[in-house]
C-alpha cells in the first residue's frame, strides 16, 4: 500500500487537513475524509456525472480526479450553494419545477448548472442542452431540469438588465 499523504483541501471556503493515499479520488475524500456527503458517487468512472463539483469554478467529475491533485484549488460542493439558510436560486428552481425525483443525480446537476451559469450567464438553449446532456438522470427528469436552469438563467438576465 502506498504511503498516505497529508494534504489540504479548500472546500466551500473551509480548509480540510486530511491524510489520504494517492489513489483516493476527490469524490471519496470529500465524502469520507471531509464528511461532505452531499456529493454523490454513482458510476465511479466518469460516465454519470453524479459526483460533479466545481474546481476553480469549473464543473469536473470528482471521481476522475485524485484528491492529491486538488491541492491548491478552490473546490465547491452542493453544501456550498445555500447561504445563511437561504437556498441557492438553482436549488429553489429545482424544487419549483419538479426537477428531481429520487434526488441521486441532483447535487451533480446543481453543480454542473451553477458552474455553467457563472461562466456563461446568457448561455443559449442549444448550448445548455449540450451541457446538461453531460449528466445522467434515470428518473428522466431532463425536461424539468432544463426548465429549472433556464428559469434561473432568464431571471439572471432580467436582473442584469
Amino acid at each position, binding site marked *: 500500500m502506498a504511503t498516505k499523504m497529508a494534504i489540504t483541501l479548500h472546500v466551500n471556503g473551509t480548509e480540510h487537513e486530511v491524510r489520504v*493515499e*494517492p489513489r483516493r479520488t476527490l469524490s471519496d475524500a470529500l465524502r469520507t475524509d471531509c464528511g461532505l456527503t452531499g456529493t454523490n458517487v454513482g458510476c465511479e468512472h466518469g460516465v454519470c456525472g453524479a459526483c460533479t463539483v466545481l474546481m476553480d469554478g*469549473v464543473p469536473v467529475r470528482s471521481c476522475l480526479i485524485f484528491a492529491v*491533485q486538488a491541492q491548491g484549488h478552490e473546490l465547491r460542493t452542493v453544501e456550498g450553494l445555500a447561504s445563511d439558510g437561504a437556498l441557492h436560486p438553482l436549488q429553489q428552481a429545482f424544487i419549483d419545477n419538479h426537477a428531481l425525483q429520487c434526488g441521486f443525480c441532483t447535487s451533480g446537476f446543481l453543480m454542473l448548472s451553477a458552474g455553467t451559469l457563472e461562466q456563461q450567464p446568457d448561455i443559449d438553449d442549444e448550448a445548455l442542452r449540450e451541457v446538461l446532456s*453531460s*449528466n445522467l438522470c434515470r428518473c428522466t427528469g431532463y425536461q424539468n431540469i432544463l426548465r429549472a436552469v433556464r428559469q434561473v438563467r432568464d431571471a439572471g438576465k432580467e436582473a442584469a438588465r
Partner: protein
Amino acid sequence: MKAGSFEWHPARSADEAVALLAEYAPQDGRVIAGGQSLVPSMALRLAFPAHLIDINGVEEFSRVRVEAGELVVGACVRHAAFHQPVEPGPLGRLLSRVVHDIAHWPIRQRGTFCGSLANADPASEWCLVAATLGARMVARSVRGTRVIEAADWFHGIMTTALADDELLAEVRIPLLPTGSRAGFYEFSRRAGDYALAMALVAWRDDGGRMREGRIGTGSIEVQPRRIATAEALLDGRPASAEAFAEAAAAVSAAVDPLEDFHTSAGYRRDLIGTAVRRAFEQAGD
C-alpha cells in the same frame, strides 16, 4: 471500483517530468495529464500503474500558440480551450466544431488534446484530426527530442510510436491555408458517447475546384487514416454532390471496418460512407 495503489509524483517543469519518467517508467510508471481516460481505466482495474508522473502543474505545457505555419498544442492544453477558435483561420474554426463531439462538457474541462493523441483510442476525434491534417508529434525524454509524423504515430488500437520513457510534449498541426474548406461528421448513439464512425475532410478551393483534398476516417478501423483512393477522385473537380458521393463510395470500398456485437462490418462500411458525405456537405470555411 477504486484504483489500485500508486505513488504520485507531481512535476513542476518539463525537465523534471521527463527526469521522473526516466526514473519510473521502468517501474511501471506513466504520465497523467487530464486523466479522463486513464483514471476510468484504473478504476476498472484495466490499468494499474505503480507510479504516476503528474504534469498538470507544468506551466509551459498549458500553452497553445501559432509558430511557423503550425498550431502548436502543449501537453496539458485542455479540450475546452478549443471551444473558441484558438487561431483566426480555418483550422481554428474547424477545431471549434470538432470539440463539441468530444465526450461531455466537464470531461472537456479536464481532458487534454495531447492526452488523446497519446491514448490513441480508435474513436478519438483529435487522433482523426492529427491523421488527416498531417500533425507532427514532439516526443521528449532525457535522451532528447524527436518528431514523429502522423503516418508513423499510430500502431493500432491504443498503441503509438511513443517509447515508455517519452512524454508527448506537444503536437504541431499545419495551419489550413486561406480559402480552405473543412468539414467533420460523427455518428454516435447517444450524446457524448464514443463514435461508431467519423470523417474529416478538407480541401483548398481553387476558383470552385477542389485541390489538395484530404479525407480521413476514424472509429472505423484500428486507427484513423487518410484514404488515398478517395482523395485522388477530388483533384480539380468542382465541389459537388456527385464528387462527394463518389468519394464516399471509394471510402466505403477501401476500409476494413471493426465490428462488434451491435454493429456488423457491413453496417459500419455503409455508415462511414454516409459520414464522409455529410462531412463534405457540412464543410465550411
